[in-house]
């Protein structure tokens, strides 16, 4: 991938930005240009998420494409942000056997992958557990 393809989305990936419709208040992720509820009446603006949320679902990836192969096994989590929308990224600072649905997490800024030895290094948000208190709790949610 050429550098512009990474750069184009860098701001959204570095700061975890989504879209908000000023007409109806709906918040969307991934960023989008159309509010399906309001269509032409909608007015989309960029919005920044707090980065806090809960694990909605997760998987541990064992078979990955080339770019991610050296990170396997890694946790991929679908996180429901406190603002409502869901986002997907890796869950780090956590062992595969520790992850649970409902676990509280927060976004952190990390390296996503290196394209190859000389290629560009991609950065963006991943998630990490907020604290250790969930370890003692039963799985909730």
């Amino acid at each position: 991938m050429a550098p512009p393809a990474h750069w184009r989305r860098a701001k959204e990936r570095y700061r975890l930005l989504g879209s908000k419709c000023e007409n109806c208040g709906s918040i969307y992720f991934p960023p989008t240009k159309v509010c399906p509820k309001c269509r032409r009446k909608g007015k989309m603006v960029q919005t920044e998420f707090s980065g806090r949320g809960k694990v909605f679902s997760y998987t541990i990836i064992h078979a990955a494409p080339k770019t991610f192969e050296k990170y396997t096994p890694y946790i991929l989590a679908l996180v429901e942000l406190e603002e409502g929308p869901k986002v997907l990224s890796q869950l780090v600072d956590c062992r595969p056997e520790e992850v649970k649905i409902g676990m509280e997490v927060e976004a952190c800024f990390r390296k996503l992958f290196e394209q190859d030895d000389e290629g560009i290094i991609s950065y963006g948000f991943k998630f990490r557990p907020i604290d250790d208190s969930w370890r003692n709790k039963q799985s909730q949610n």
Partner: protein
Amino acid sequence: MRETGVCIGVDGMIKKRDVAIISAATTRCGEQWDKGIKDLAWEAGVKAVEEAGISGKDIEYLVVGNMSGGMFVGQEHIGALVADFLGLNPIPSLRVEGACASGGIAFFQGYLAVASGLYDIVAVGGVEKMTDVEQEQATTALSGAMDFEWEAYFGATFPGIYALMARRYMHEYGLKRESLAKVAVKNHYHGSMNPLAHFRNRITVEEALNAPMVADPLGKYDCCPISDGAALVILAPLEIAKKYTDTPIIVKSSVMASDTLSLLRRRDICTLDATVNAAEKAFKLAHLERSQVDVIEVHDCFTIAEILAIEDLGFVKKGEGWKLYEEGETYVGGRLPVNTDGGLKASGHPVGATGVKQIVELVKQLRGEAEKGRQVDNAEVGLAHNVGGSGATAVVTILSRG
């Protein structure tokens, strides 16, 4: 020579014509070192044309489903390629793409062409040559079915996306990995009786549970394999179908629906709304009830997908699909025979061909021509369900015996 034209109803509107399948064929699925994409398309095409007893020059229009000739074999322009290799030039021929639903979409397009009265004899093909690249490259090509910027870019894989659905489903409805394994065991059992299947070995629940993990909770036996294969069917207006075959199969309806590309914005990740919407409309147009369906071919790219499919198609309540597998009801002879050819899991998943291959299996079932042991007794109505990506595209087609 055209024998029929566009039908104009009394109200002056174009009237939909009844459409029939006059022949249907597939190649074997699996790793086929000796066959390239052209050979596969040719093989399915020749089989189907011979079966219909038509000559290539009767075919007026060709639609081919193919997901990623470019990434799997470095070949695009598949519409022209297949027309050329089947000796059909200069008819219009195009390739359609909707990830793993490419074949289903091709069928939907071919159906529209005949139903609208614009063409009489239409060939619908699907082809994918997947095993010329390494496993990781195939995984990369398949991950193009997701939202590249917000799913694949963050390390999501195709099995990974379905694993997220499976994990959530387990959490909400109490499904266990053992029940998922039973889906694979059933599909391998059906596949063992299908001479064209990718896998013909039977497996046990223990084998499935002990296989290596691909994307937890999905192990190797929860996944469809990477297959080479092709399929082709020929459509004609029902009124002239009897000229070509004694057993035309009627297309009662063929409906496609779309949903958000990524899993992130789905209303519910345990439901494929595209399937729900396509199925509702397909049953309405066909004037049929779920209880009248004798056999179904659903998109089991992963074991969880088969369970979601039978629920979203409306055959069983959400959250209860897996219970049918506990009771063995989805085997041939059961209440709802599912994937009598082995499904994507055992019969194989040459992605662009799959939607057409499902139709070929239903034609076989409705004609009573399936191999012993996997033929559903006196099957009259069949349903095919083909999905692209994690559910951004779904095609539902209902067929009945003529």
